C-alpha cells in the first residue's frame, strides 16, 4: 500500500492556480523528491500534504487518512519541517529537542536512546549546551530535523531543508535522510536544486503548478531523446553561437570553457565535429556526456504538451 496517495490535488489563491491537479503515489520507505524552481508550487503542495492548507480540489491520503476531510488526524503521524521551522533561539540544542519531545508526548523512558541516535547522525552531541541562536545555518537545519524526528513520524515532509546550507552540512543532512528511509520512514522533500534531486528514489518535476515528469532520476535522465555532447575549443563562446545555429542541435549552453550541446539522435560526436569544422570553427574535441537531471528538466519544459 502507498504511504501517500495524491489524487487531482489542486490549490488556487484568489483565482491564481498554484497547484494544478497533481496525481502521484509515494511508497512506504521511499525518498520522494519534489523538484522545481521558486513559484512552481512545491511549498503549497507540501502544506496541503501536512494538513495545514486545505486543497481547493482533489485530495491526498496519508497512511489511510484524508487530508481534505480529517487534517487533524494526519498530524500525529507526520513531521513537517517548513522553511521557517520554529527553533527557540534562546534555548540550547538539548532544550529544543526536549521541547518537541514533550509537544509530541514522547515517553520519557524512550528519550535517552532516541536522543543518542539523533546526536550520532547529526553530530550535534558536542554542542548540546549551545544556544540554538548561536549555531551555524547547517547546524540549525540539523537541529530542526532532529526536533522533527524525535516523535518518530511515519512520514517526514521537508520544505527545502538545504536552502542556504553549505555543501558539507548539506551532505550530512542527506546522509541522515537516507538513514531514516533505510529504517522505513517515508520522506517527501522539496528542492530547487537538480543535483540534490538526483539523490531521491523518485522525483516529481513541478513547473508552474503542474507535474512535468515523475520517475526515478535515472529513468528521467535517460528519457532525453537525443544525445548530450561536451564540445571544447579555443573560442568556447563562438562554438556556442555556432552550435545554436547548427541544424539538429536543440540547445547549447556554455559551462566555463566547455559547451554542452543537446542534439537529435542522428548526430554523433564525429558528425558534430565535422559540422562545426565545416562551419569554420576550430574544435579541440567533442565527447559524449551523460545528461543531468537539469538537462532533462529543460527538455520537459520545452516539450510541446
Amino acid at each position, binding site marked *: 500500500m502507498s504511504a501517500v496517495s495524491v489524487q487531482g490535488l489542486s490549490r488556487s489563491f484568489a483565482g491564481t492556480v498554484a497547484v494544478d491537479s497533481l496525481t502521484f503515489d509515494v511508497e512506504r520507505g521511499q525518498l520522494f523528491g519534489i523538484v522545481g524552481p*521558486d513559484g512552481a508550487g512545491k511549498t503549497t503542495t507540501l502544506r496541503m500534504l501536512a494538513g495545514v492548507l486545505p486543497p481547493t480540489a482533489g485530495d491526498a491520503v496519508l497512511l489511510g487518512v484524508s487530508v481534505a476531510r480529517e487534517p487533524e488526524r494526519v498530524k500525529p503521524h507526520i513531521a513537517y519541517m517548513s522553511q521557517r521551522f520554529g527553533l527557540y533561539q534562546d534555548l540550547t540544542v538539548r532544550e529544543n529537542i526536549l521541547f518537541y519531545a514533550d509537544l509530541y508526548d514522547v515517553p520519557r523512558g524512550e528519550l535517552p536512546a532516541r536522543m543518542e541516535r539523533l546526536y550520532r547522525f547529526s553530530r550535534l552531541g558536542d554542542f548540546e549546551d549551545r544556544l540554538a541562536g548561536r549555531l551555524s545555518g547547517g547546524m540549525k537545519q540539523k537541529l530542526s530535523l532532529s526536533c522533527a524526528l524525535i516523535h518518530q513520524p511515519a512520514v517526514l515532509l521537508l520544505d527545502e531543508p538545504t536552502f542556504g546550507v553549505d555543501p558539507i552540512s548539506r551532505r550530512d543532512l542527506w546522509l541522515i535522510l537516507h538513514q531514516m528511509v533505510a529504517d522505513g520512514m517515508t520522506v517527501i522533500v522539496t528542492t530547487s536544486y537538480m543535483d540534490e534531486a538526483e539523490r531521491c528514489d523518485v522525483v516529481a518535476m513541478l513547473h508552474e503548478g503542474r507535474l512535468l515528469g515523475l520517475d526515478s532520476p535515472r529513468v528521467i535522465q535517460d528519457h532525453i531523446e537525443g544525445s548530450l555532447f561536451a564540445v571544447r575549443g579555443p573560442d568556447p563562446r563562438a562554438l556556442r553561437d555556432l552550435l545554436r545555429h547548427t541544424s539538429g542541435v536543440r540547445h547549447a549552453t556554455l559551462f*566555463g570553457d566547455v559547451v554542452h550541446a543537446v542534439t537529435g539522435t542522428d548526430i554523433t560526436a564525429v558528425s558534430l565535429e565535422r559540422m562545426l569544422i565545416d562551419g569554420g570553427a576550430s574544435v579541440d574535441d567533442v565527447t559524449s556526456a551523460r545528461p543531468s537531471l*537539469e538537462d532533462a528538466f*529543460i527538455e520537459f519544459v520545452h516539450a510541446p504538451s
Partner: protein
Amino acid sequence: MSAIAVHELTRTFDDFVAVDSATFDVARGEIFGFLGPNGAGKTTTIRMLCGLLRPTSGHAQVAGFHVARDAAALRARIGYMSQSFSLYPDLTADENIQLFAGLYDVTGARFAQRREWVLGMAGLRGFERHVTGTLPLGFKQRLALGCAVLHEPLILFLDEPTSGVDPVARRGFWDLIHDLAQAGTTVLVSTHYMEEAEYCNRLILMNRGRIIAAGAPQTLRSAMTEAIIEVITDDAPRAVEALTRAGGVIEASMYGRAVHVVVADAGAQAVTMVRETLVAAGRSVESITQVTPSLEHVFVSTVRSEGGAVAG
C-alpha cells in the same frame, strides 16, 4: 595584465585568522568562482577586494587600484548583485534604473543610452512602468543585473546570483554573464552551489581561511586522486554497511537507489575490491561503474583531506 592580483592577502579579527595568505590572479574577462563552506573566508576576501575591509597584511590590486590605498575610487568601478536583490520592490522597473543611475552618477546622454541597454538586455521593454515586485523572478533577476552594471563596472561581483531560479532562466542569465565577460567585465562569483560553480572559467576552493584548491572545474575534477564508484545492489543500506567497514573505502553513502563508494585509489583493482566486498557480504551486484566525480565530490574530498570544515 591581470584584472585582479592578490598576494599573500591576510585578515585577522583579534586572534582569528579569517583569511590566511591568499595568493591568486584573475584575468580580465574571466568568470572566477569562490567556493567554500560557511566561515571559509570567502566573504572576507571579497570584502577586501571591494575595498570595504582593510587587509591586515599582504596586498591586492583590483582593476589597477590598490585596495587599501584607493578604496573609494575602486568602489566606484565595482558592481554587486546578490540573490537577495538590491531592487526596491515597490518602485517600477524604470524607477529602479533611475535610482541606480543616481547612485552611480550616470547622467545625460549616457543615462539614456545605458537605460536602453538595460531594458533591451533584460527583455523589459513594455514593462518599464510595472512595479518591480510583481515581475516574474527571471525578469527581476535580469533587472538587478542591469542595475548592477548600469555604470559599466570593471569588476562585477555576484553572490549566489541564481539560487532558486528555474534551470531555463538560470541558463539564460549565465548567457548574459558570459556576454559581459566577453565584453571585458571581470566577474567574481561566490556560491555554495555546484550548479553555479560549473559556469565559472576557474574556481578557488577555500577552507578555514586558506585556498586549498584552484583551477578550472574540469581540472579540479581530473586532479582528484580518490575515485567514485557507483554500485547498484539488491539492498543499498546493507551494501553501505558492508562497504563502510572495508579497508580502502573512505566513505560509502546512498545516492538514490545506488551507492556511491569513495575509494582512496582509482583503478581497476578498486572496482574489484568493491565487488568482492559486496559478494562476501552476500549482496548481489547489478551494476558497478567508476563515475566522473562531480564538483561536490571534489569539494567534500578536498575539505576532508584538509582537516574538515569548521564545526559549529
